[in-house]
């Protein structure tokens, strides 16, 4: 259960005038149970790197291993199936559907897995409790506070109990208090054995004591720490 990238490249709109080389040969490896921060300025390629590790799309070239599978050549459909199992993803803008209730949002990933409504509720309950949003479970997600929304997004990422938790700039829209709260939750998950990868340039995230490793990225390339 690790993530390993070897010479991973990602080119958007390859061959077109709008071609963008988002990643130029990235190699790294992340061991199970680690908490890692991808740090870099906007446009440096954090989201792209996270997407490849999150089985959203394969790299243009190079080798990517997530868990125990090489995903670099997987067709789209199998990538989706694999992502459902392995990855919990928290978006920068939460991407919660405002008209659905909190519990409906959280259990969305269970629908295509053919989980019955009763079982869905059963699985959501402990998460709602752990994240203290039980009292909001039937509220439309559009009617709850930003902090609660953040926790809904976390609960949704965890509903399939995936080994990897990925978050893209999770604190970008949160104030300091909520950012710290988020980090607390995530640290708890790390202790529970999840591998956590955070993309962020927020010092509150990068400099958190529980972060095992910071990976700096610039213009699509890893910045190697200067040897002392």
């Amino acid at each position: 259960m690790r993530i390993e990238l070897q010479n991973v490249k990602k080119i958007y709109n390859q061959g077109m005038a709008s071609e963008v080389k988002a990643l130029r040969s990235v190699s790294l490896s992340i061991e199970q149970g680690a908490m890692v921060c991808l740090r870099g300025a906007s446009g440096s390629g954090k989201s792209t790197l996270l997407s490849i590790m999150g089985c959203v799309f394969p790299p243009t070239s190079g080798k990517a291993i997530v868990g125990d599978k090489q995903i670099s050549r997987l067709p789209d459909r199998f990538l989706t199936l694999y992502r459902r199992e392995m990855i919990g993803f928290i978006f920068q803008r939460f991407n919660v559907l405002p008209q659905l209730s909190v519990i409906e949002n959280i259990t969305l990933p269970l629908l295509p897995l053919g989980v019955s409504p009763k079982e869905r509720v059963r699985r959501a309950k402990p998460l709602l409790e752990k994240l203290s949003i039980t009292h909001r479970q039937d509220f439309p997600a559009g009617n709850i506070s930003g902090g609660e929304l953040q926790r809904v997004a976390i609960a949704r990422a965890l509903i399939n109990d995936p080994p990897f938790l990925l978050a893209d700039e999770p604190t970008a829209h949160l104030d300091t208090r909520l950012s710290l709260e988020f980090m607390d939750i995530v640290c708890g998950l790390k202790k529970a054995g999840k591998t956590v990868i955070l993309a962020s340039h927020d010092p509150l995230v990068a400099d958190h004591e529980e972060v095992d490793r910071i990976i700096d990225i610039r213009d699509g390339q890893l910045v190697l720490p200067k040897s002392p």
Partner: protein
Amino acid sequence: MQINPFQRQCNILDYALSSLWRRKLKNAGILVIFSLVIFLVASFQLLTRSLLGTADEILAFAPDITLQKLSAGRQVDMSEARLAHLAGIFGIAETMPRIWGYYFDETNGANYTVIGLAEEKIAAAGFPLTGQEETGFLKRGGVIMSPAVRDNMGLGERRAFSLFRPDLSQVSFRVAGVFSKETNLVSGDTILMCLEDARDLFALDDNAVTDIAIYVTNPLEIDNIARKIAEMMPDTRVLTRSQIRKTYQAVFGWRSGFGSICLLSALASFVILAWDKASGLSQEEKREIGILKFLGFETRDILALRFWESGLVSGLALVIGLTLAYIHVASGGALFQPILLGWSVLRPELFLTPALQFSDFLLLFSFSVLPYLAATIIPAWRSAIIRADTVI
């Protein structure tokens, strides 16, 4: 991980229902308009079918052969003496001289069909009647009329009334009976009387009739006998029942065809409108699909979702529209009678049995549900293959 495909489909259906509910205003609007259009088309379809059925019943009472005299290409009356010529043709079971005319009732502004038959023939025909006179025979001065004519004349339970000869002198009549509803289309504006009274009313010569109804012993011989009569009397028009049926069907067919074209184009324009509405997926809908895909919905799940959504809306509209149309036609088809029976000022109170044929259903289905499904699913296909990373 084992996935239960049935439960998965149930989940998607469930989600489809809840998204329909979330956009209930838009969907209710589409449902109402869609149902209305289907209601109109289906009513028309049902009514036409039902009228054709009624016409068939009427034709069952029509004689095998109808003989009319033509002069300068127009129908004129002829002498009863012709009956004697017919007697020589083998295979004729019965001949029935008739007077068939139209009486314009100025006070009520309505046209009546006046049919004169020999007394004994009326008795023998045994028309289904209500409010019959004791004798049951149609004596001179007595008439049988349709309920609609009685209502139109405002007779109520009164039996005595009078009509005018061409010279405006009055002829007195008595209502001897009223047709019961089964024979409606033909008897809708019919006054049946004996031959002599009809002659008197229209001031025809003695022995004059407008046509002769002929019944043939062997139905297979009808065309043959009709040809013989035509050869024998070149100045006549000889109509067989099947020719009359064709005329009927041509009239109904043309009218309903015309109506159908109008209505189908209404349906088509609705579908185009719906297409326009449904295909332009809003930004919000695109985002929703992107999120669902990211969360593990496959392309086929998204398509199933759209299929349920639009299938439910258009299927429900079809059911509602058809049900309303059935009720509408069963209760008289008020909306379309002026188009279908436009020739009669006096609108007969039709007694219709709606008849839905599978082919009609198929036609409606393929003009409503199918295009709507296509209109919603094809654009969804385009968005369903949107990559999941668009929401990052």
